[in-house]
């Protein structure tokens, strides 16, 4: 057991894990505030969407693509001045959350867009035939029908942000990433590094399982059928 391991102790690791989880969830949630509407607009304004507006779609799509194509580690460095202006600091958790949001929002937007695009065109047409307007279709058809897929997307986004948060730990905030990279690596504390890895794996697993369970629970397409079958089997 290395000196650093002992020094950190249970509290040190627990704090790191907590910081990772809280930054990840906070940043992902904030990224959805931007990414969800953006994703919907991308889908709705596309050619063949329910309210096509190709110029707007092109511009938004281009912005999203630009942000999506910059590797996070570079984007982070590039965002240091912006963080200083907007959140008043370029280090610490606040700066890190800002960077995570900027990186995650376009990612989330694409996730949302692809989920919403999966909604059956026929169902949208049916809603239109009943006199539904654009807003009603988004609110009452697209989002509810895409819900299970949106939840799966949220799980994937959260895990991605968690990965980013570990990277962000190297220059700004705290969390397990910061412990492993900035504290353990210089002193080559292998045990600390591996415990960080293990903790991150566990956190990802929990998010994944929880999210998938939730997605399955909300999906009305097959679940009930299975349940009925199970009950029938039990009865017979």
């Amino acid at each position, binding site marked *: 057991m290395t000196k650093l391991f002992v020094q950190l102790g249970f509290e040190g690791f627990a704090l790191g894990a907590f910081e990772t989880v809280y930054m990840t969830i906070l940043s992902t949630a904030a990224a959805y505030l931007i990414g969800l509407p953006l994703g919907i607009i991308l889908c709705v304004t596309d050619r063949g969407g329910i309210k096509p507006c190709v110029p707007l779609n092109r511009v938004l799509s281009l912005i999203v693509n630009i942000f999506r194509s910059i590797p996070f580690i570079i984007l982070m460095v590039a965002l240091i001045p912006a963080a200083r202006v907007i959140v008043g600091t370029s280090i610490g958790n606040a700066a890190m959350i800002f960077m995570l949001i900027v990186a995650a929002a376009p990612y989330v937007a694409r996730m949302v867009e692809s989920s919403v695009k999966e909604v059956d065109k026929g169902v949208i047409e*049916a809603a239109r*035939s*009943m006199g539904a307007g654009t807003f009603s279709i988004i609110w009452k058809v697209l989002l509810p029908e895409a819900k299970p897929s949106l939840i799966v997307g949220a799980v994937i986004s959260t895990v991605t942000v968690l990965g980013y948060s570990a990277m962000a730990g190297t220059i700004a905030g705290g969390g397990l990433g910061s412990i492993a990279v900035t504290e353990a690596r210089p002193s080559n504390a292998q045990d600390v590094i591996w415990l960080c890895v293990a903790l991150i794996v566990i956190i990802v697993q929990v998010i994944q399982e929880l999210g998938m369970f939730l997605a399955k629970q909300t999906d009305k397409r097959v679940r009930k059928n299975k349940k009925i079958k199970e009950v029938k089997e039990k009865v017979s």
Partner: protein
Amino acid sequence: MIELVHLDKIYPSREGDVHALEDISLTINDGAIYGVIGLSGAGKSTLVRCINLLERPTAGKVLLDGEDLTSASEKRLREVRRSIGMIFQSFNLLEQRSVEANVRFPLELIHAPKEEARERVKELLELVGLSEKAAMYPSQLSGGQKQRVAIARALATRPKYLLCDEATSALDPQTTQSILELLKSINKELGVTIVVITHEMKVVESICTDVAVLDKSRVAEEGKVADVFSFPKSEIAKQLVIPNLIRSLKAGTGKKIRLVFRGETSDTPVISGLALECGVAANILYADTKNIDGRTYGHMVITLEGGEAAEKAKRYLGRCNVLYREEEDDEVICSAGL
């Protein structure tokens, strides 16, 4: 009344424009069950979507009770659509909503009071016979049940018109029949005017009062179902109505006579009459008749030997009030009325 006036629909594409509808003019009277039949690609689906302007016609007018919908505002169109229900081949139910919530959907759109909506949903589910499935989800239902839910949903806002786009094409024959019965009773009891798009002759036969035959984006023929069925004039209508008849006319020798049954002659045993009263042996080449409500509809092709026998037979048929035509070959068949 729905009037389509010189409707054109062109889909521009890189390989050249696609003319989906060409100069379509139709009048659909209130109370009718109006069939639009044609092979796939004839433009049927585009046509029905032009009625509620899900597709905007390139030229021409759509008049709904005299109001030109092509010049109506987006807001007015949404209002109008509430008086035109629509059902689809693939049902298009909201998969994440229960049966009940699906039927409630159009009522939510018009912000109907909750209590009122609940009552209406109950009423509608009763009408389509699915009251006990209210809490289920579409994925738990069979195709026929899904279409019943779709019908209940389409009727929620008490529309005057109901558009059916290949509504029974994904269903087995038995289920098709039960859905058609339901549509018929909706027409009769609620007075809803129904437009039925289909490629199946059977559907038109069993419920429609009027029919338009669509071919290559144009109306090939239009009229009362009984007339179009007895004496189809256009090539496409002949193909759809009596596909085997044409083949049968090429077979056999002797004079061929086509008898047309239009529901008036069910009681008279015509063929045995020919044998017994005129001593003429008729050889049946083709027969496709069906009994609807105790009346016979359909066609029969017989050959008669010898000139004199044929004359006798014709006189007999005339006395019996049977419609018939002497057919030379498939070129002249049905080319004129009687």
